[in-house]
């Protein structure tokens, strides 16, 4: 039985290889293989789906507009349903195919495969901005500032703008590695002097009603809730808070709660889900939003239009997220080529590490430049705070950078 299967698999493999050779021979240029494994279905697929579209569209665009000259990028995209086992299988498969750069998605699998990345010495850009990804690892490059940095900068924003004595803050977290990521760092920042008090840490379940939690927070005098989860639990919480009349009409209103959140808690879906309860929700993100209508987002919308994406995907910040990761990958390969080096794992890794100073890369999707160095593997360090005003996310102030993150690192 097994022999038969192995024969069959081998035959299949040979066919695939032959096919790949003929394909590359026809195209004229070289084909660089990349791999992306992400959750298109299953948990967090509401973010993964537009993300995959962004990656797919930009690589297609890069190939068609010949950003790499005659050479093309072949990025295989596979659904792993947020399961580390499947991610690992995909990764091994991609490695067998000889990829030069690996794009990953979930926090769980990025942490789980960290050792494999080290052993294979391959640069990895995950969609997870978990700071734990960077501990004891040299090959993981976060696209933007980590969740910890996002939550801490929200904490700083609270500390700076809160009137009165110490601001009382509660954290609302996803019950997973992804949600808990920033907890320890935020606590460390508070210890290092960040002027807020963390009153309670809530990990939400599949709640239909958050009344109990919200009234408890109120009784403890909490004025700010910082969320690190996905959109729909936040929307449910906001709706309950709205019903209870707890949402502050302006930042830091006395006796009410101001809600804030990190990257994956915000976006247009949140507004659609929570409707008017989302008003005055503060959100930190490193991407340009289409509701701001600037140069970058115009290009994003044009790309979406080119490949026939619907309104919803086109305006999603996770679509921008996917484009940005593809942009960074393409840029790294372009730079390796421009330097006259062979496009391989080692050289891409070197180029990514050299993406700083004058060499920083400015993709149109983000609010700041992508800067990597051997000591800093978080891409865009700038964070923009947005708030919902009249049903759309609008900028609040200029992009900021966290102070306390540097202190605790």
């Amino acid at each position, binding site marked *: *039985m*097994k*022999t038969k*299967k*192995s*024969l069959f*698999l*081998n035959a*299949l*493999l040979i066919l695939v290889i032959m096919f790949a050779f003929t394909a590359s021979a026809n195209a004229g240029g070289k084909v660089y293989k990349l791999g992306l494994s992400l959750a*298109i*279905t299953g948990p967090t697929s509401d973010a993964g*789906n537009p993300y*995959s*579209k962004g990656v*797919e569209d930009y690589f297609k665009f890069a190939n068609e507009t010949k950003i790499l000259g005659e050479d093309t990028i072949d990025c*295989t*995209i*596979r*659904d792993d349903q*947020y*399961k*580390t*086992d499947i991610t*690992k*299988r995909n990764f*091994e*498969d991609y*490695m*067998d195919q000889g990829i030069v750069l690996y794009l990953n998605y979930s*926090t*769980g699998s990025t*942490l*789980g495969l*960290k*050792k*494999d990345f080290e*052993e*294979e010495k391959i640069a990895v850009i995950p969609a997870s901005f978990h700071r*734990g990804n960077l501990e004891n690892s040299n090959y993981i490059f976060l696209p933007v500032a980590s969740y910890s940095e996002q939550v801490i900068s929200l904490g700083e924003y609270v500390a700076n703008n809160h009137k009165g004595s110490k601001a009382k803050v509660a954290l609302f977290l996803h*019950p*997973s*590695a992804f949600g*808990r990521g920033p907890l320890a760092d935020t606590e460390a920042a508070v210890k290092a002097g960040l002027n807020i008090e963390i009153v309670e840490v809530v*990990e939400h379940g599949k709640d239909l009603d958050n009344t109990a939690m919200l009234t408890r927070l109120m009784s403890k005098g909490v004025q700010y809730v910082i969320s690190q989860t996905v959109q729909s639990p936040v929307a449910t919480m906001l709706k309950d808070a709205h019903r209870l009349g707890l949402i502050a009409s302006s930042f830091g209103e006395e006796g009410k709660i101001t809600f804030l959140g990190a990257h994956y808690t915000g976006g247009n879906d949140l507004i659609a889900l929570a409707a008017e309860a989302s008003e005055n929700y503060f959100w930190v993100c490193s991407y340009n939003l289409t509701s701001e209508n600037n140069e970058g987002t115009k290009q994003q919308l044009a790309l979406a239009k080119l*490949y*026939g*994406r619907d309104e919803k995907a086109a305006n999603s910040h996770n679509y921008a997220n996917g484009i940005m990761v593809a942009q960074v990958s393409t840029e790294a390969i372009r730079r390796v080529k421009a330097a006259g080096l062979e496009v391989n794992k080692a050289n891409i890794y070197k180029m990514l590490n050299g993406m700083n100073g004058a060499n920083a890369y400015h993709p149109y999707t983000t609010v700041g430049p992508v800067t990597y160095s051997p000591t800093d593997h978080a891409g865009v360090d700038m964070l923009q705070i947005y708030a919902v005003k009249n049903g759309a996310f609008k900028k609040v102030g200029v992009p900021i950078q966290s102070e306390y993150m540097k202190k605790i690192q």
Partner: protein
Amino acid sequence: MSANSWLATGNFYTTYKQEQKTFSTSLDRSFFTLFLVILFAWPLLFEMSNKNMLVIDNILIAVVAVMGLNLVTGFAGLISIGHAAFVGIGAYTVASFCRTIGDTHIIITHFWPLMIIVSGLVGAGFGAVVGLPALRLKHLYLAIATLSFQMIFQWVINFASFFNQGQTISVGRVFWVTGKVGRDDHYFFWYYIILVVVVLLGFGIRNLLKTRYGRSLIAVRDNDRAADAMGMNPGLTKVYAFALAGFFAGVAGALHAYVYRGVGFESFTLHESIGYLAMAIVGGLGTLNGSFWGPVAIKYLDLQMEHLSEAMGQYLPSGMNLTTAMKPFTFGLVIVLFLIYEPRGIANWWRIAKSYTKLWPFRY
């Protein structure tokens, strides 16, 4: 017994002892030996990529787990919707050791066979405890009790900081007599280890079923009150069926931890439990060889769907939804079709094929 030990065209048993022989003819034994030799030899002849080797390892681990599930659900008739949790118990036993003594401690890296056995025993312990409700509950209620265990397991892993709150707990690379098993040989090495485990446990089940302990499982499944009247202890039998299943699952979990070199809670969710049940059913409940067919069929289908999806994805540019829809759709369809048209699973085809060859070239 007929004089010819190579070909037996009928039943010539004169004692029960003869009937209990593992191989009825020398031909059977030779075939089986040859098959084993092939299983052990082929990876040396064909160069396999890491991914394919990982897939095969994964199938074999599922075989170990499904053998356990088959004991409790197939032979003893107790539906368990929490089998992945037992596998998780095994994996987290290894992980707990890694957490307390470090993942590169000599016990983890050198005494891994011991770790695998310990995980199996811990799994058996939990199996016995979870089996306790079986003393009072039956049918659906028991199935739901095992579901509760699955949910409680997931909750504990996900919230306990000792288990790293469900994040991956890494497990170090193991050592063999030739030294450290490196990345290139990892899956290759574990293929042999798991294969040995599968063969040992397979013979274990086969022999168990010939003893009174094995037969009491089946008696309890068919009618536990009748079994009681005949002097068996149905309560004890049920608990020990769960314990056995827990042992197999625990071993599978430990193997999973070592092969994937990490333990994260996503691998032991309700979805996986359902997957194991599906494998047991497609393979054939209450048969030993069904435990081999099921995992092979389900995992292979999954993989082929992925290939097909990719091939289709080239023609359907934004058809991502179509391609990701294929996997659950075909998974469900296969289960339903088997239940409707072949409720006895692939094992039944095997039985038919075997009885055909036994009589060949005569039809009757």
